[in-house]
């Protein structure tokens, strides 16, 4: 399969490849700069495309055929054996809940949710999961794009691509290496117009697009974030970016200080 793309080669041999597609309920844009041929990039894109869909097959809670959906359906009534990948993902999410003082929480969509719901998600060392309460619902949507960025990073590294810009839905962006003639990748925030230079870093944004939007809830008090506002964070890890952009948006000063100890935060931008 050849995905839509634009390919250019300069007289000096540098080549640029841009491709775009939809995945994870959003858009994905990939730009590579190297000296490779068009077919190389097409194959590379296919690898990335395939990997993203593998991740979706495991952890997309909106698709009833995925592994996470099976967990959501069954883990309250029986222990469910899960793959190593989902196990690692869930473990990371639970740890992130601790590290963010409970502000990052994958159980907020559960019926009768409270700040302690996540404590009822039991992971055993032999990769089994069990819910201590009925109607727990795990939603990894706020986490997967960052995870996908990390996985794409690995694929690119293996392929020898050092200069790339990866965009997952505008809210999760990874800049590797640099644009030609620049240090890093210069990215502008749509809301504030602020310019961010990404040097092997991720820029992750959470917030509301409009005053009508209510989709981010504080797990500690059940109150939705209101108003048109957002928070962006620059991190070296895509996963940490996803965790932090939401948690920092909800955090008070004390909680922010706590997170500053737990994570390597390079920059926070409010807009």
């Amino acid at each position, binding site marked *: 399969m050849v995905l*839509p793309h634009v390919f250019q080669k300069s007289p000096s041999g540098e080549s640029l490849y841009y491709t775009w597609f939809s995945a994870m309920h*959003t858009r994905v844009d990939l730009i590579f700069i190297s000296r490779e041929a068009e077919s190389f990039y097409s194959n590379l894109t296919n690898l990335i495309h395939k990997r993203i869909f593998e991740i979706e097959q495991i952890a997309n809670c909106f698709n009833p055929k995925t592994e996470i959906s099976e967990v959501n359906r069954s883990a309250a009534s029986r222990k469910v054996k899960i793959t190593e990948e989902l196990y690692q993902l869930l473990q990371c999410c639970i740890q992130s809940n601790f590290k963010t003082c409970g502000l990052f929480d994958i159980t907020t969509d559960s019926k009768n949710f409270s700040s302690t719901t996540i404590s009822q998600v039991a992971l055993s060392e032999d990769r089994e999961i069990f819910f201590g309460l009925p109607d727990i619902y795990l939603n990894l949507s706020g986490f997967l794009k960052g995870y996908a960025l990390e996985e794409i990073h690995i694929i690119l590294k293996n392929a020898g691509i050092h200069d790339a810009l990866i965009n997952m839905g*505008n809210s999760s962006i990874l800049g590797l290496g640099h644009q030609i003639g*620049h240090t890093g990748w210069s990215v*502008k925030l749509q809301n504030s117009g602020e310019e961010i230079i990404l040097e092997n870093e991720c820029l992750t944004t959470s917030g509301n697009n409009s005053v009508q939007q209510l989709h981010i809830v504080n797990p500690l008090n059940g109150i939705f974030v209101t108003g048109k506002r957002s928070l962006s964070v620059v991190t070296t890890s895509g996963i940490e970016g996803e965790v932090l952009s939401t948690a920092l948006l909800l955090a008070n000063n004390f909680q922010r200080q706590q997170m500053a100890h737990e994570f390597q935060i390079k920059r926070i931008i409010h807009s």
Partner: protein
Amino acid sequence: MIVQTDSAENILFANFFRVLLFFHIFAQTLEEILNLTCKPELTHYIIMENKLNRRAFLKGLGIVGAGVLASTSPWLAAFSEVDHTMKERCRIGIIGPGSRGRFLLSFLLQNPKVDLVAFSDIYQPSLDEALKMAPHAKTYKDYRKLLEDKSIDAVIVATPLNTHCKIVLDAFQAGKNVYCEKTIGYDMSQCRSMYNTFLKSGKIFFTGQQRLFDPRYIKAMEMIHQGTFGKVNCIHAFWNRNDNWRREVPSPNLERFINWRLYKASSKGLMTELACHQLQVGTWALQKLPQKVMGYGAITFWKDGREVFDNINCIYTFDKGEMMTWGSDISNKFYGLEEQIMGNWGTVEPERGKYFFEDIDPAPAFLQMINEWENKVFGSIPFAGTSWAPETADENHGEYILGKRPDNDGTSLNVDAFVESVITHKQPPRIAEEGYYAAILCLLGHEAITRGEILSFPDEFKINYSTYHTKAPSAL
């Protein structure tokens, strides 16, 4: 999809864009053109500087590179020496200053390199109207008298279809450069005769295929040829109207003279008057000629004594099964005029000035970055923010090829390019051939309709131009 540039091409296209500015700097359309193709700040920059910065203009136009442009639209080379022709003059006569002829005249009068010398028409009201626009021009009832005027460098032929061939042959015989309105010939033999005479003459030959100079089409073709929309398998072209296509006749004995488009002796109707433009767009997009054509036509609504069809559909098929359909119904205008060029990734509608992707569009910010890549000038990419949601893309409104839809359809640039070519004595690559094949295709379609047969493209009408990319320059 490979972009290569060299200094000659850069100069060539720098001049093309410079001429765009030059010819329109005094025209009211300047700001419109620039606004359509450039960001406001860029427009301001260009106007204030009164010169063209190629990089800035390319950025505004979104043209990826001169190499691609040269391959897609090589006739733009007509403007390659515009800097050196500033003091030159082209003396022009118009044969047939009717409505179309005067439309062309309106652009010629805006071109400071043109001296409008004479008009010729057998219909006095047309001469009178033309003289209102250019009062000092001489007038002739007989075009041959105009051709005898040695001071005239070039003629514009905008007469009824059935008269083109004789006038054009006479014009070449008289040593004139020729711009002939499309369709160039009444039948395929006439077209071939005109083309061969042009080759022997060493003169300039342009046809009225204005889309070749329409910025929307140029940009769309660049994108198509780069593969941006994937493999193009199908083109649906149509031109629908809801009017009788008649002109008011002051006296019944002038009916066939004024409404020549409606009668077989002087026209082949919709095929020669409308299809010619759009069939050329199809072959431009696919970069090859069709192998077969079939079609059907009828008079289904305007049963008013006309002899040409008011309802037509044709299918042109290509070597790998690709198809181009062309249709026209002049009793319903709902779908209007368009060429829907369909690739497996997306669709272009150049007349509307938009493109649409099957799944999601490429991000404009990323496309901008690609355009900047050639020039090694990178700005920040404005796209970061809260999550892009698919619900925002449920309705596919598409993207503009060049910002807002331009009013300019390329006619003025086509005429200006002709003037430049006459001055430089250099026939631009492929321009005559595009006009020739556009004519052959519409005439072949008409023949398929009237014979009720599937016709193959006749070898006898293939010129040394069967491969769009490679043979045109050498043919000249």
